[in-house]
């Protein structure tokens, strides 16, 4: 990752636990930082969140069972949601707002679309935003996303469908 370096607390790495920790950080640093960035929309906030995630990882090395990747996704989502709640609330998209007619002459470039989608993500409710980030950006399955969020698959599908429609209308309204 070429973004700013992640500053982590210094832990004793001579021990077996230290080496495990180092290995997990090396393997998942990019994933955690990328997910935090998509959820929070800012790199500095994402770096703060990633530090918090790895701090929790270190504290829970012995107690963390199962797949560390799923555990890290879950903690990243929780940390980012906490972070997001502390910030100023943003106006949510109105699903029932009049759908503006798109300009057929106006073609949105891929970069523009990505930027609009990132802007639109910030306006989504927490569950919808998290579902889209995990499912559509991170490429996890509906089942994996549901396991990370601790909800039923049907709930995730519902959140994702609603969020995708909102994002599509958001992008179209700004073309």
């Amino acid at each position, binding site marked *: 990752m*070429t973004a700013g370096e992640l500053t982590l607390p210094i832990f004793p790495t001579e021990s077996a636990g230290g080496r495990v920790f180092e290995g997990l950080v090396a393997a998942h640093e990019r994933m955690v930082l990328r997910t935090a960035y998509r959820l929070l929309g800012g*790199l500095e906030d994402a770096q703060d969140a990633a530090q918090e995630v790895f701090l929790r990882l270190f504290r829970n090395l012995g107690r963390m069972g199962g797949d560390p990747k799923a555990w890290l996704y879950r903690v990243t989502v929780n940390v980012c949601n906490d972070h997001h709640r502390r910030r100023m609330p943003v106006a949510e998209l109105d699903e029932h707002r009049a*759908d503006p007619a798109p300009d057929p002459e106006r073609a949105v470039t891929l970069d523009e*679309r990505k930027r609009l989608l990132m802007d639109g993500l910030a306006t989504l409710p927490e569950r919808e935003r998290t579902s889209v980030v995990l499912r559509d950006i991170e490429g996890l399955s509906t089942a994996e996303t549901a396991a990370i969020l601790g909800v039923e698959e049907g709930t995730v599908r519902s959140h994702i469908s609603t969020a*995708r429609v909102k994002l599509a209308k958001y992008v179209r309204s700004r073309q």
Partner: protein
Amino acid sequence: MTCPECELLLADDEADASVEDHLHGCAKCRALQEELRENALALSSLRDDELPRVRTPKRRPAIPWIAAAAAAALLALIAHQASQRRPIVETLPRQVAAPATVTAKLAPAPAAKLAVRSKPKRARRNAPVAEPLLVKMLTPDPDVVVYWIVD
């Protein structure tokens, strides 16, 4: 099927064939379908995008600030000392410019002491060296007058 129902089905990963009939007759939902498809591509490509760099302000070395602070403190000290000396600087050159005579009565002893402590040395230090300062001291005896010439 209504448009809102069709929209949610189009956005679902497991959309069924029931939307096809609606799409044939609804240009708005067809446009949304295309929008959803392009968004899905854009979202999935976000995963491989590099994150932007954090712009950290460059730190200037602290030494120039320390030097500036020291210079400011030195100037303030000089200004303070100059303001303390100003009355002497302002009055004494006038006395020196035209050879002045300072008269002091020695009759009461403290007065004589006071006259003697008229800081002539400071005057000499601050004044041009051209003219001496003449101090005339009166004594209780009217026939005795003491003159003090200060270089």
